[in-house]
């Protein structure tokens, strides 16, 4: 049996590309660029990660297929379009993540539980239609590669929805009232970079694997009762 080539953390960035994000396209693009540059500047961390960027609205489009950021030369480009269909996101991940994990294993790697960073500025336009697929995705009995999901809501996204999307209440965040959406997007990407770098450091050590940093200008989402 060949050696294990390494132990990787697959990370997925889900960027809301719905029409309401139009005014903030520049912040989204700049955030993705800074993410790519930060990982290229940390080759030892990047060696332990594989990053995918997916844009979602009425469907999911691949902006960066799962990649080694030390060698990836393109920067993912977002396209603003359509509505905010959460069901499309979780349906895509339900098939994409197990396939990616299988592919990485086939390359000789062991795999940490994947992590999804979900950014949305609105409530789902498909009502509650996404919940069944989401439940299947995060159920480790049905989906052995079930990811940890970190959700960040900006604009019209409600705390209760972010809590339902995240796999732990500690992983659900919403922007503080009054914070501009553009600034919140920038903070999301800054926290994403630090979370990935710190998680990359914590991999292969006697420490828990996933580090999630709260973005500045965000609070932990608290449901209203």
């Amino acid at each position, binding site marked *: 049996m060949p050696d*294990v080539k*390494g132990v990787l953390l697959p990370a997925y960035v889900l960027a809301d590309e719905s029409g309401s994000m139009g005014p903030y396209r520049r912040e989204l693009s700049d955030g993705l660029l800074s993410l790519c540059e930060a990982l290229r500047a940390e080759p*030892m961390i990047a060696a332990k990660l594989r990053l995918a960027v997916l844009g979602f609205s009425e469907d999911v489009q691949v902006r960066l297929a799962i990649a080694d950021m030390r060698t990836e030369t393109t920067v993912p480009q977002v396209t603003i379009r359509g509505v905010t269909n959460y069901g499309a996101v979780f349906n895509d991940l339900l098939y994409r993540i197990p396939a990616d994990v299988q592919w990485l294993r086939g390359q000789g790697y062991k795999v940490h539980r994947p992590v999804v960073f979900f950014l949305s500025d609105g409530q789902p336009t498909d009502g509650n239609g996404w919940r069944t697929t989401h439940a299947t995705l995060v159920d480790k009995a049905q989906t052995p590669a079930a990811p940890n999901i970190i959700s960040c809501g900006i604009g019209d996204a409600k705390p209760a929805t972010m809590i339902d999307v995240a796999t732990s209440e500690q992983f659900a965040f919403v922007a503080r009232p009054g914070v501009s959406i553009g600034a919140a997007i920038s903070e999301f990407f800054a926290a994403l970079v630090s979370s990935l770098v710190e998680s990359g450091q914590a991999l292969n050590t006697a420490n828990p694997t996933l580090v999630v940093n709260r973005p500045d200008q965000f609070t932990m989402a608290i449901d209203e009762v």
Partner: protein
Amino acid sequence: MAPRQISNRGAGLSAAAWERMTVQPPSMPFEPGPPKQSAYDVLDTECEGWSTDRFTMRAASVRGDSHRWPRRSKPRQDCVRATVYERTGTLVFAVADGVSGAVHSEFGSREACRTAVETLVEQLARGGEIDLGAVVQNAVGRLVELTQWRLGRQPDEAPTTKEVSDLFATTLVTGIVQPTRDGDCFVDLCRVGDSGAWALDRSRAPYDPELYTPLFATKTGAGKKFVSNRVAALPQLPAELERVQTQLAQRETLLIGTDGFGDPLGDGDGEFGAMFAEQLHTPPAPLWFAHVLDFSRETFDDDRTLLAVWPLRGQR
């Protein structure tokens, strides 16, 4: 005054001989950064080696690339300590991996090792069975003392487990190797956390699936779907201490290692396991032992520590 002439002895040796040993794919080369200011006596690498008439011991602890990386350099958090209980010629050892989230884990691992070795020597001097549970308890007691001192607490103000853990959490493997009359060695050891122990069968060929026999359950062995690094560590104690007693045959080498060695080893039947089996077929010089342990392999950048014991049948 003119400077003294400096000997050029060794100048003809090839520097390539000391290039890091690589298992593909290699990690990138770089000049390490200094450890934090307060850790000046925690050296990047330490090694040790000696023999009695019944066994040969080699031990090394090497800072991993993740702690050498200049932007986030930290001291080595692993530690190994070993001595011989002279009256019976028993090897006493401890290997520890300080939890990276703990503020002073480099001291936690060192103090846990020292306390374990000293306690075992005291127990051997008293005679009778050794009590590994008491050894681990003493190591925890030492971490509690250190925390009390570090936090400036009064003797009657015991720190919480979390306070101890936040400062000094560490894994620990500790035990003895007792030469027996029939020429083999009796091994008695225990562990808290994910550091490991293996018997390397030097009579087997490289890539043989039974080249390395793990003495404890491994976290990355075949059949594990996802890798978890969530481990128990001192001061927390498991409900039941993992303890192993076994005989070490002449053809076997006992290996005690932290996960910086155990993770890339995996099941031991790949290129990494073959390289170590070849290098450890006979005891190498202590410096070379440390050099081998400073292997280069992409993504395996944690501190690595290994103690190896070769039984001898009065061959000294």
